[in-house]
């Protein structure tokens, strides 16, 4: 299992490194969205819950962009067929795809969060950074799991570009709630205390439940 996941993950990252299909697009999208937010809100700096909302909405949409592309190569160029012919555990593909998506998200945030701090964020990011990373990590796991599941669901449909976001957005509302509420005090000028534990708990619970569900259900999306 671990070797299969490793091989699949290597293949995914290699494909991405050679084509640069998803991650640059996602990062560019995030930065452009910050610019759009600047003009749409007519503000030069934001803080508190507004800042948290902008950050999470941008990350979410960029992530959905990536999730939509996650399985396209496999569906169009026979990746699924090749994988199904191999005598390996099918869940390995799910784990590998979640890890790929996580890697995409980490790179995306490495670009988007500094860009956000420079372009829009009023208060300094420095002191809140460790807590912000913890919240983002918890949110990323949930987004990666849902993104993988929805990506696999949507890729076999005809209207895949439309259905993917339609399915993913409502499913990710709890992540936005938890993430934005947990991040809001970190991005405020009067940075008081830490993240309320209940939001971290909500995010963690969400990750756990949907991780298990996706793991249990992914096999059914692959057999043909």
């Amino acid at each position, binding site marked *: 299992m671990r070797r299969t996941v490793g091989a699949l993950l290597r293949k995914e990252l290699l494909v991405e490194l050679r084509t640069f299909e998803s991650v640059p697009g996602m990062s560019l999208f995030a930065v452009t969205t910050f610019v759009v937010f600047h003009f749409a809100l007519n503000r030069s700096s934001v803080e508190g819950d507004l800042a948290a909302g902008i950050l999470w909405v941008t990350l979410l949409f960029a992530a959905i962009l990536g999730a939509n592309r996650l399985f396209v190569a496999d569906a169009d160029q026979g990746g699924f067929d090749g994988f199904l012919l191999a005598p390996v555990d099918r869940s390995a593909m799910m784990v590998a795809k979640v890890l790929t998506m996580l890697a995409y998200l980490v790179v995306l945030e490495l670009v988007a969060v500094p860009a956000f701090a420079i372009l829009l964020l009023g208060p300094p990011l420095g002191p809140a950074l460790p807590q912000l990373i913890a919240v983002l990590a918890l949110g990323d796991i949930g987004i990666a799991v849902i993104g993988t*599941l929805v990506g696999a*669901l949507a890729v*076999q*449909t*005809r*209207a*895949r570009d439309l*259905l993917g976001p*339609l*399915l993913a*957005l*409502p*499913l990710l*509302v*709890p992540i936005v*709630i*938890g993430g934005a*509420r947990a991040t809001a005090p970190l991005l405020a000028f009067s940075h008081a205390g830490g993240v309320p534990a*209940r*939001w971290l708990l*909500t995010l963690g*619970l*969400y990750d756990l*439940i*949907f991780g298990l*569900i*996706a793991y249990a*259900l992914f096999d*059914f*999306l692959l*057999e*043909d």
Partner: protein
Amino acid sequence: MYGKGLRSLSIVTVAAMALALSLVFFYAPLEAEQGFLQKIFYIHVPLAIIALCGFVVGALFAIAHLRTRDSSWDMRSYVTIHMSLIFAVGALITGSIWAKGSWGHWWVWNEPTLVSFLIVFLLYATYQPLRFAIEDPERQSRYASVFAITAGAFVPMNFIAVRLSTAYLHPRVLGGTSNLPGSMRLTFMVSLAAVTLLFVTMCKYELTAKHTRAQVRALRRRLVGEDGSPARRGRTAVPAMGTQAAGRSGL
């Protein structure tokens, strides 16, 4: 096979609905603050409860479908979710009317139950488009079941998250049935039972209709051959249940 007992079930449902409505209008006391408007509670809350239960039951049927690969479970899951969606629309509309009447706005964001209900509704609104976008009937039913199970698990999770996110601005007067006076509770229970019956009856009707149509199609195909009846004209969101089974038993 699905039509058995449909007539008696329909009669019981009509009687229960009549009883519930007469209790609502003639027996239940007027609530002190909201007056007549509060009576929408007896329709709105059962609709919402049954719609949510229907979504979860649809997920259970979907689990049964994935375990047994029996397409009749997929049909049950489809019908349950379909009917729940209709009930959910009813719950959203009545909830909106109630909110307008008691708080003066058509929509209130600080009522967690209403908000989570909307999110769940938006999620399930993609169920039909998802089915519609997959042409292969076998894959369609499999993917729909995966979606139904994920969404079914999402229902309670979403309620927890939204409930946490809302500061309790409104005192939850009608939060539980335990603090209702006796006559109101009786009316509510009867309404709940009536709406449940209505849900079950409607589902049974739809199941019977779908099953009968599939049987008729299979019979006609036996009679005039494959091209006599174009089996599934174009794409469809409806599960392809019964066609193979009926055809097989006929041959």
